[in-house]
């Protein structure tokens, strides 16, 4: 178990069943990892929140599946990759976090936190780009789109940045194969449901 100070005790027995579910982890490296903590030092998430990868990974090795997957901590990682070159054990921490988030979503957690990705995900499928001219608009989105087109023309760029039809078709096929489209449909359904239920209050 971990205490509030972040100290890790190794007296408890490890339970690797959950650990094995989080693919890409090597149990042989873990004793080193638990007693290290280099990743926490300069981690921007650890500086501003209760995120602490060493505590998370310890809970994983203790088989605390429900605790980890329902925790808010796994959603605090900045995925800034600062820990990648720092980690002496080459654990690939952000990738572990991605996998934990995915497992958490399978249990129904975290969907509200990735709502933002539904818009960019839909953009990717429909126009082959994740950011559309309307996404970061500081004014009415339609007006923003027109202003952008005007600026682009003045710069001698094409009026709009467009991906070819062929590319979008190919992208649709591969995004279908990866399960991305299905995941996105799921996400949109959940966002819709949660909006409807809040409207009923």
């Amino acid at each position, binding site marked *: 178990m971990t205490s509030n100070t972040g100290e890790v005790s190794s007296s408890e027995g490890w339970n690797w069943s959950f650990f094995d579910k989080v*693919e*890409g982890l090597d149990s042989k490296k873990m004793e080193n990892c638990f007693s290290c903590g280099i990743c926490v030092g*300069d981690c*921007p*998430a650890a*500086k*501003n*929140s209760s995120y602490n990868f060493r505590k998370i990974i310890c809970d994983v090795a203790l088989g605390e599946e429900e605790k980890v997957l329902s925790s808010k901590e796994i*959603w*605090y*990682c*900045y*995925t*800034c*990759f*600062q820990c*990648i*070159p720092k980690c002496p054990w080459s654990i*690939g921490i952000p*990738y572990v976090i*991605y996998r934990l*988030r*995915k497992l958490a979503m399978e249990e129904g957690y975290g969907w509200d*936190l*990735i709502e*933002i*990705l539904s818009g*960019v995900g839909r953009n*990717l499928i429909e126009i*082959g*780009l*994740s*950011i*559309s*001219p309307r*996404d*970061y608009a500081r004014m009415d989105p339609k007006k923003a789109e027109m202003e*952008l087109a005007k*600026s*682009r023309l*003045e*710069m001698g*760029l094409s009026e709009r*940045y467009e*991906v*070819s039809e*062929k*590319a*979008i078709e*190919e*992208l649709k*096929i*591969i*995004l279908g*194969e*990866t*399960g*991305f489209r299905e995941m*996105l449909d799921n*996400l949109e359904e959940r966002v819709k449901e949660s909006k409807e239920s809040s409207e009923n209050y």
Partner: protein
Amino acid sequence: MVNLERLGRIPDNGSFFYFRGCFINNVYPGIEFATRFVLEKLGVNFVVSDDQTCCGTPEFSSLNADTVLTSVVGRNTSIISEKTPFVLTDCNGCYSSFYMAEALMEDAKIKAQTERILKKIGRKFEEVEVIHIADFFYKNMGGILEKTTMTLGGMKLAVHYGCHYSHVDGEKGLDSIENPSFIEEMIEKLGGKSVEYTEKILCCGFGGIQQTVHKKISYATTQKKLDSLSEAEAEAVVVICPYCLNVLDKYQGNLLDVEMLDKPILVIHLSQLLALIMGAEPEKLGFQMHRIPVENIISRLTPKESRTKK
């Protein structure tokens, strides 16, 4: 110390694929104009393609299996390699997508799945050399110095390299991870004064989904960064990523509004800065999209002749 092996992998001439990013094109097109302007001034032969899509956006890995990133990146490498193996990018997001996909492909299972998916559209994951535009400009510093019409006029400039440039390819990168300084070296050569600051390595605050879902912690990071820049009396901060530009510029506007920051610190992409001193019209560099006005930089630039007259 600059990694000479990495520098050597950037060819002196030949053809390059300019990988266009969606954030740049749809939010800061002035960066694309600037990159093209500098490349054209240097006489670099580069191509673009409408068959290229979004880089794959690292954050989509939260949405699904890792194969989303590897498949989208893989498809783009296939389009790129039809033209040339050398890719230039002016966005840390695009840059990191390529390097993350490469790292993920070391996993046999992900590799096999990605290959199967790409086969459906008759494509393969091809090997390409992804070069950040900052590295490329450093390599071409001689040509840049020759083509500049102005100097930076002793302006105090700090540099923010950005996480998805500095940390994705580890020891293989152009400069030190802990304290990169090659852009500072460029600034000095271009007549500016480079400024060191405590939080140079700190993230801009974007933090993937954090700037949307945990605004408080995201803002805290941005403020720490800006406070450190302010303490070092930097007049401007040079970035090499449109996302870092967006966060440092937009949040800064909010912090200034509530007087949590005393003085504005201009935020400018390296491509925009170089285009400016190489004679690009400021109106074409898209500064109207920035919240912190960049006019102060423009007024500080000094024509090159005046230095030789002194």
